């Protein structure tokens, strides 16, 4: 177990190194000039050149990489070209909204999707099952921004229940925090509800056909016990896997949701950094995302031990 953990943690290092090199090179090879962005529209070519030199962009690419990577090894992600603030500070400012949104989204998704999936499997072929399948197709098909605008129109503009945009920190009050995150989280959770519910349904459906389920029913156990303690527990591994993948995919999903709902999170920071060719920020955020992705996968793998005692590492 510990050897497995150590191996997996060590394996993250080459992954992060490859990500760092690729991101660095891709950014340098892509068109666009951070200095021109910073200088403004009326700036002269000389002014742009002076800013470029000030940012160290007149150095060779290997030299730039050596400086940046040396700093990263010391835990310094550099300073944002655009905001003139440390990237770690920027990430620190932006991580709370993103984590909050991800947490509420995945909570809603799990709390809604797992019971729905179990019930759909239990009533296979019934109206609930068909309804869930229809909802899943819709949930997968509808773009997040379209759903966001529809929900804003209905919930905020017509009913006046929730705000259109913005974010309040948890420290400013849990009520305001939840008030501002509810609509974005519902928007973002729809696709995950569709995904998790579908996988739950399929997985539970498969276990419901197993001999031990027939035995449990023959023993006269209540149907709820059969479903939750026998069927769902044995179907948990694929469900947990897809929830893990869902959390990782959220990283992409929050970019759109944060833009539409004006949430100043990591997604919005990434978009701004890309538009402004803010190389240090893009590099820092992508490294963080990569690390998070690897860690989530590791946690999912570890969770298998809990759900299936037969698994050994």
């Amino acid at each position, binding site marked *: 177990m510990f050897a497995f953990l150590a191996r997996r943690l060590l394996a993250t290092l080459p992954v992060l190194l490859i990500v760092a090199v690729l991101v660095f090179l891709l950014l340098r090879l892509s068109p666009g*000039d951070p200095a021109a962005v*910073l200088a403004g*529209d009326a700036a002269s070519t000389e002014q742009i050149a002076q800013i470029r030199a000030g940012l160290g962009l007149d150095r060779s690419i290997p030299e730039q990489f050596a400086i940046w990577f040396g700093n990263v090894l010391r835990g310094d992600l550099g300073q944002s070209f655009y905001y003139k603030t440390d990237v770690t500070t920027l990430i620190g*400012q*932006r991580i709370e909204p993103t984590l909050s949104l991800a947490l509420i989204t995945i909570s809603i998704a799990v709390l809604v999707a797992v019971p729905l999936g179990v019930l759909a499997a239990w009533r296979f072929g019934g109206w609930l099952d068909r309804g869930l399948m229809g909802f899943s197709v819709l949930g997968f098909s509808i773009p997040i921004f379209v759903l966001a605008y529809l929900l804003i129109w209905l919930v905020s503009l017509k009913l006046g229940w929730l705000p259109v*945009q913005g974010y309040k920190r948890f420290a400013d009050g849990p009520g305001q925090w939840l*008030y501002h995150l509810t609509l974005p989280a519902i928007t973002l959770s729809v696709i995950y509800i569709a995904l998790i519910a579908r996988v739950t349904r399929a997985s539970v459906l498969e276990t419901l056909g197993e001999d031990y389920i027939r035995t449990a029913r023959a023993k006269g156990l209540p149907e709820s016990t059969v479903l939750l303690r026998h069927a769902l527990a044995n179907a948990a591994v694929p469900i947990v896997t897809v929830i893990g993948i869902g959390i990782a995919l959220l990283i992409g999903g929050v970019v759109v949701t944060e833009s539409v709902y*004006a949430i100043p999170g990591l997604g919005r920071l990434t978009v701004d950094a890309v*538009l402004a060719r803010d190389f240090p920020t893009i590099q820092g955020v992508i490294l963080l995302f990569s690390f998070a992705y690897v860690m989530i996968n590791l946690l999912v793998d570890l969770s298998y031990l809990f759900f299936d005692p037969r698994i050994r590492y």
Partner: protein
Amino acid sequence: MKFQRKTWVALALAVGAVLAQPHAVAQESVLRIVPHSNLAVLDPIWTTAYMSRNHGYMIYDTLFGTDENAKIKPQMVESWTESGDHRLWSFKLRKGLAFHDGAPVTGDDVIASLQRWGKRDAMGSALMTFVQSMDSPTPDTFRIFLGEACGFVLEALGKPSSNVPFIMPKRVAETDAFKQIEDYIGSGPFIFKKDEFKPGDKAVYLKNTKYVPRSEPPSGTAGGKNVYVDRVEWNLALRDAQAQVNALKNGEVDIIEALGFDHYETVKADTTLQLPLYANLGLQYMARFNHLHKPFDNAKVRQAAIAAMTQEPFLRAQVGVKELYKTCPSMFVCNTPYGSLAGSDLQAKSTMKKAQDLLKASGYDGTPIVIMKPTDLASIQKLPDVAAQLLRQAGFKVDLQAMDWQTLVGRRAKKDAPEKGGWHMFLTAWNVFDVWSPIANPTMDTRGEKSGWFGWASDDKMIEIRNQFMRATDEPTKKKLADQLHARAFEVGTHAPLGEYNQPMATRKNITGFFITNGNIYWNLKKSLNPA
């Protein structure tokens, strides 16, 4: 079932309690603004970005302002004199000027600020070529000694757009002009809350309660800067155009600085919203040629392109709302002091047949014109399509290349040939005050590769006229020279003006006090609980 009902009731109560909270927060004196872009650089001298300029207007004051009729008026200056030979300018600062830390504004602060500005701004640099020295005989006075007479001292000191000569404390203004300042103390009507600034999220300004406004009514960047709200918040996170309108309708923000044209009719029809008049001079669209490379190294080809690009199709496609645009062939913008029509018949009275004839006579060799089209900038993204179509009709071959705006911004600085990553033409928009003066207008700088702005036009005659303009000290002569320069610019084909438009601003109806600013300025505004 009983348990479920209880659960639902508890949930409903919890949600109700949560929903009830926001209404308890009074926001009477907070003006919530959605600016036109993100605020990244807090030094309005280091960058020409309009957002940094607008930030500057919040916290700094200026020696002179430009009123709604484009006239220069004193702001921090109480009085001034000019010697008979126009070489010595003496200024007296008005009483009560103080920085946010309580220190009085002195002549030394002014001189240091002007020196830093003169190293960054094109007009400032031009002024500094005339300046022999500056001094401050007493704390509330300063003098400018010129080597030879020049006619744009006040015009430069009252320059309303980037880079604006904002006055900073001497210790701040002594920062290297090529490094950004880190101390944001000004003497303007608002105080920047540095501790609340979250890049990409929000910027906060508090009312400067010690600010002493002028007694004249506000007009442009001149007149009294009275502040009637306690706090101004710029929402930097709300960038999606539809989300901005939704937030305005829902009362979550008070002002959208730059309303998308697509939303104009929606806002106009909403009884809780308004479209206040804040500008009487339009912004200007323009197409800029790269004069370094074939075929636009040939003036006749450029003239043919200008003749092909008549203004109405651009304005109709990009703006679409008839009441928001007008054709105007003046490169210096119509209804400004130097607004001129000299030489503009090439475009104003053109037909496609004339453009085709000009192109045939130019010796155009069929080189495809590389037009850069920004796909992510809604305010100008339709212009390149119109240009491509009109140029094709005239007989040009066109290579329309789509890219994001920042790629365009980086690429336009390249002097390489178009086939090696350079370009032939791009289209953009200008604030009136960046192009209204023959000195400020960057396209009038025709020093070839030494010229400040992309496109690198070259023409000795224009340089000569512009130099005469800088030295002219009486208005009739300046106007005459501006006309000559304008006519010559059309002969040279520096660029094509593509018409003027007003950028609508949308606000809730309980916001009052708007005046003609021709920019984004937030003093004099009042916010009431009930719509007026």
